[in-house]
């Protein structure tokens, strides 16, 4: 046996002994889908808590419009599926194909919002938000995306994301979609092109911030980085 191989064997033996010495019993993490449901339930709880502050009659009227209803449903579904995908990709050995799961709901969400824009151009008398209201929406969206993202990243850190940027991006999508769904009861306007654009910018911002901050936080779990 060569000196190099011998020293490698010794290094491995020492590391194995050190890790065995450091062993403590661990509680197995629940299934990724169950953890995603836990986060989703927390977001849902926030929505239920906020509901008494919303104008429920106006909400009922808006939900009678198919594209607004579908857009809201799409946002909720995107939040749930993106959270499931984020938790799945945070566990070693799970397929990265899970990252495709939120694509269809996101397409539904964005597509229905886009259809709403077309309707607003065709139908006269559409309620258009002014710049102040738009700014308020953005503050609402970013304000709720932040705690939802932080909560999600903290939960994801308990696992071991081997692709931290992908997991963080999925977490960002989940948080942005959840914030958009939370905004629905307080959003007294029909969808417009500027509204849709503002929402898309916000989603991009949240995902980007998650990749930058969340990706680093998640990769800090790795011993190399």
């Amino acid at each position, binding site marked *: 046996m060569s000196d190099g191989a011998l020293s490698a064997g010794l290094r491995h033996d020492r*590391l194995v002994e050190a890790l065995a010495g450091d062993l*403590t019993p661990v509680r197995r993490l629940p299934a990724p889908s169950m953890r995603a449901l836990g986060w989703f339930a927390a977001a849902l709880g926030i929505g239920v808590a906020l509901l008494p502050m919303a104008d429920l009659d106006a909400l009922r009227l808006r939900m009678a419009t198919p594209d607004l209803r579908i857009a809201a449903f799409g946002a909720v579904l995107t939040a749930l599926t993106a959270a499931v995908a984020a938790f799945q990709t945070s566990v070693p050995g799970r397929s990265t194909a899970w990252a495709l799961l939120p694509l269809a709901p996101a397409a539904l969400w964005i597509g229905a919002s886009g259809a709403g824009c077309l309707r607003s151009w065709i139908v006269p008398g559409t309620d258009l938000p002014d710049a102040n209201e738009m700014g308020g929406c953005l503050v609402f969206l970013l304000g709720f995306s932040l705690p939802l993202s932080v909560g999600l990243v903290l939960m994801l850190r308990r696992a071991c994301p081997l692709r931290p940027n992908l997991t963080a991006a999925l977490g960002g999508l989940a948080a942005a979609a959840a914030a958009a769904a939370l905004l629905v009861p307080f959003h007294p306007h029909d969808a417009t092109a500027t509204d849709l654009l503002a929402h898309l910018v916000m989603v991009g911002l949240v995902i980007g911030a998650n990749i930058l901050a969340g990706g680093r936080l998640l990769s800090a779990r790795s011993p190399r980085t």
Partner: protein
Amino acid sequence: MVLAGVTGMAGAAGGALWCAHERPAIRPAMTLDDRLSAAMAAAQDGDTQAYRDLLRDCLPVIAGMARAQGVSVEAVDDVVQETLLTIHKARATYDPARPFLPWLRAITQRRAIDRLRHSGRRPQEVHDPIAYEAHADAGPAPGQRIEARERERSLARAVAALPDGQRQAVEHLALRERSLDETAHLTGRSKGALKVNLHRALKALRKTLSNDKTLSDDGTLADDGAVSKGKGNRDV
């Protein structure tokens, strides 16, 4: 041939042989994945010895996976170390209801890719790309150490399944390379009996290993009894 094989492997296989001999219940039906999965489940509950065995069993597996990923021989040991550290940190994420090897492979591949990226960032000067591509790899092929370990295990099982006298003859004379006098003194058997036992043991091992026989749960040969019951194969 078998003697050469047996004695040639004595140094490397010795540990595995004695370990296998000391463990009363050998379960050949248990695959590598089942064994590692059970060990990780025990490690999650705090079983230090199971964890130590698991990590040691993982060493050749990780090295083979890293080599298959394209990691150079010189860098494999670093990838093994980094993978062991990640296994330790990520052990709570393993679900014993799922196979172990895909979990391990995902971690190893990621650490191997990290290593390849790291080495790819360092400047390399290659004047002759064809010579670089055609350069023979000095290291063992991926999985070679795993195959060697499997061969050691099957040999250990075959030796453990021999009748006591034959097993003692193989262990003392062939594996530990003791003299007939020493062995006779240690075992209390005559030198003639030891010679006959060794001859019969080698004949049985040759037959067992060439046919790749399977073992039953109690560690005896299950299919034809050539070792334990056949004519001319009893201990003397």
